[in-house]
């Protein structure tokens, strides 16, 4: 087994010293990457390390500020995703977007179906071409079947087939396995091996390290937008890889304080929202950090929304400090001492066009009131106080939150909710898309809040974060709570097993 770069083959696609900034955020710094034909190449890095930006640069979505994209050794400029696709580069996303009412064959040949005379669509040719693609991939899927109802795994296969129909030579797979079961992963890897043997270059992104070792030959690690290393995986251990990704001691990133839990603060009983989640019951006690884990789409966010009152529940009960909450009423949930830091910071957490001051003030519109009018002095001092406490980096408190970096925006969301003095804090993906430094700050803050007696419910797709911060891990699978794992028993394997529905117990 010789390394492709040793055989004299030229890289099919490469990045050379590519930099890309968004405002003050330097997403990529002088990153180089070479993809060889017949190679499966892993891209490793934490959330926010720059993986998405790198993928989007390869796919023609972003244009680099500096550096070059090289196709077969020659510099190219992609003016859009269409250019990259025409150059033979295809991206398979975690959750494919197919037209549900069209057949598999129609989805694959969307907009460019074979024609017969007078421009009539040649259905038989479309079918045959699709069947041929499925044969090449070694997968049995009926081309006439509508996309609706296909599993995510099957939808990905359709996307891959579509990529092949464009004669793609480079396949970029962005966390394709995140929502797949074990056997589906095995089938996907079979397809990937087939593609590799047919000479395609595959860039593979996954949060599951063992998968990288299973299928990839080399790995490129990113941290804070810079390339740390490109090297063969052979001979490396998972610990080596984590050290390159994190670049620091894990204890520092997850400063967990030991707290003796107090009374139950949040109690969720048999909560059900039809077709979304079913019979969910759990408690969170004062001083506890409880993680709600599971795959994307398992119903975690939906449970949080219902508890806070954004969506109504169909059955069940929620209590804060023993008092039941009104169904579908966020304002009463807030009054009871509940706070929700939502998943989508830009749409749900903040009003992007409003100032830092007013955003933090939004949760205090009813408390900072004198004689029925907003007390601007009280509003300003409340906002300043919390912005300073959370060390938000800003120029003026009257600046719009849109001028802040992602991490500082997240701090404003936290400030907005901590200013309400919550008894129960629900955080949904609290560190998604923010830099490692701020991430550690957010973790320290959550830990401190728990120590001060707040009950924290943390939804996170970031497994190290879950394992590093939680006293208990609740796992959801397909709308049901499938496992509760104590801190001592919580391992990546145990959580993933429960999340994918393979729980032994």
């Amino acid at each position, binding site marked *: 087994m010789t390394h492709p770069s040793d055989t004299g083959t030229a890289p099919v696609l490469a990045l050379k010293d590519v930099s890309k900034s968004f405002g003050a955020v330097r997403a990529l710094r002088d990153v180089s990457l070479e993809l060889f034909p017949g190679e499966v190449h892993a891209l490793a890095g934490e959330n926010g390390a720059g993986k998405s930006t790198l993928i989007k640069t390869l796919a023609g979505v972003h244009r680099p500020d500096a550096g070059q994209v090289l196709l077969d050794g020659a510099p190219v400029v992609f003016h859009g995703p269409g250019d990259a696709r025409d150059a033979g580069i295809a991206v398979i996303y975690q959750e494919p977007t197919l037209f549900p009412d069209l057949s598999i064959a129609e989805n694959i040949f969307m907009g460019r179906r074979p024609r017969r005379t007078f421009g009539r669509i040649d259905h038989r040719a479309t079918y045959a071409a699709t069947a041929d693609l499925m044969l090449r991939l070694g997968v049995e899927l009926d081309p006439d079947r509508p996309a609706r109802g296909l599993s995510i795994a099957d939808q990905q296969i359709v996307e891959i087939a579509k990529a092949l129909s464009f004669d793609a030579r480079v396949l970029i797979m962005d966390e394709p396995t995140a929502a797949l079961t074990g056997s589906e992963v095995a089938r996907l890897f079979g397809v990937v091996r087939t593609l590799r043997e047919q000479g395609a270059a595959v860039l593979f992104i996954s949060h599951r390290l063992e998968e990288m070792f299973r299928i990839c030959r080399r790995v490129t690690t990113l941290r804070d937008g810079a390339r740390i290393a490109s090297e063969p995986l052979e001979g490396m251990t998972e610990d080596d890889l984590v050290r390159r990704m994190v670049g620091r001691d894990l204890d520092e990133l997850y400063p967990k304080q030991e707290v003796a839990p107090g009374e139950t603060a949040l109690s969720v009983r048999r909560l059900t929202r039809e077709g979304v989640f079913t019979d969910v019951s759990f408690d969170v006690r004062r001083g506890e950090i409880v993680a709600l884990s599971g795959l994307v789409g398992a119903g975690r966010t939906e449970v949080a929304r219902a508890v806070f009152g954004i969506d109504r529940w169909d059955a069940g009960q929620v209590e804060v400090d023993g008092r039941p909450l009104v169904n579908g009423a966020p304002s009463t949930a807030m009054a009871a001492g509940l706070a929700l830091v939502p998943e989508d910071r830009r749409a*749900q957490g903040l009003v992007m066009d409003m100032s830092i001051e007013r955003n933090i003030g939004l949760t205090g519109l009813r408390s900072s009131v004198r004689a*029925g*009018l907003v007390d601007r002095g009280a509003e300003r001092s409340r906002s300043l106080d919390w912005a300073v406490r959370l060390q938000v980096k800003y120029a003026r408190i009257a600046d719009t939150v849109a001028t802040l970096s992602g991490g500082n925006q997240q701090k404003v969301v936290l400030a907005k909710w901590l200013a309400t003095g919550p008894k129960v804090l629900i955080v949904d993906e609290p560190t998604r898309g923010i830099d490692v430094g701020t991430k550690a700050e957010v973790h320290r803050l959550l830990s401190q809040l728990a120590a001060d007696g707040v009950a924290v419910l943390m939804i996170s797709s970031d497994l190290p974060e879950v394992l590093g911060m939680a006293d208990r891990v609740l796992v959801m699978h397909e709308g049901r709570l499938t496992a509760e794992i104590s801190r001592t028993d919580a391992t990546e394997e145990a959580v993933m097993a429960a999340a994918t529905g393979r729980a032994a117990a």
Partner: protein
Amino acid sequence: MADSPLTRAARRSVSLRWDGAVGALLVVVLLLSFGFVDGFGNALNLSFLIGNTLPIALIALPMTLLVVSGEIDLSVASTAGLSGAVMGALWNQGMTIEVIIPVCLLLGVVCGLVNGLLVTRLGLPSLAVTIGTMAAYRGIAQIVLGSDAVTDFPAQYLDFAAGRIDGTFVPYAFLPFLVLLAVAVVALHAMPFGRALFAIGAGEEAARFAGIRVKRQKLILFTVTGLMSSLTGVFWALHYASARYDNAMGLELSVVAAVLLGGIDFDGGKGTLGGAIAGVFLLGALQNVMSLVNVSAQSQIVVTGVLLVVSVLGPRVARQISVARAGRRAGAAPRSKTPAPTP
């Protein structure tokens, strides 16, 4: 849509400057008219100007709040017409005016409530809903009164609606308007209710996640808009001493044009009541001057329509220019339209 921080900063400064610019423009138009338009400066004409602008101003108050919250109501003129028609019909039935007026106001509340329920309960876009009710309310007005014109309302009411404070050009009706204006300013700019409206207009989902009762607030606004529209309808019938089904026809165009001219962002979340009222009186003054120099009513509508388009377009063009300038100042290449990364 995600804009770059630069665009946002530029938009903010543009919206602030726009208010001031409209106020300054109003002063300039008034000064020029005093100087150069025959018959503009006499007391009778000034009282006509204010009296004819009051219907626009009255409806502009709730309309400003509505547009700030990201909604719109185009049925306001029809609601006014309907109240006038019902007023005339009930007067013909022999009911006393003291009973009729509360009934008309209640009818306005119902009209507004219907709009509000359709928008908040069924989640329909207010633009479509109120175009529908605009036609429906006007149609009902015609059914109620036919082509009659009722003119014989009690003299003391007609006198109040058309009269002026002794020795001045200020109509009596301007005083209650000032009270309503003060209430609206406080409600929008100083009360939690109004503060929340800005959040709703600029980011409805974020407002909901901050515990703001978005639907309730919108329902209240539509209802108040209905009430103010019917109040305007009653005022209109008395002011012009004529209740007809086609009273206040097309007034919604003037109201929306004036509010947007005053710097209220059509997309919601931005603007001040001061700007909106400056827009109202700027439009009123222009309409008055056009009448004095014998511009036909049809041509005036053309001008109002053009003003509406300009006031939607103007801030956008100004924003583009200031973004381009800011970009040059920063010495940066043109900003990419791509939203910030979400790795």
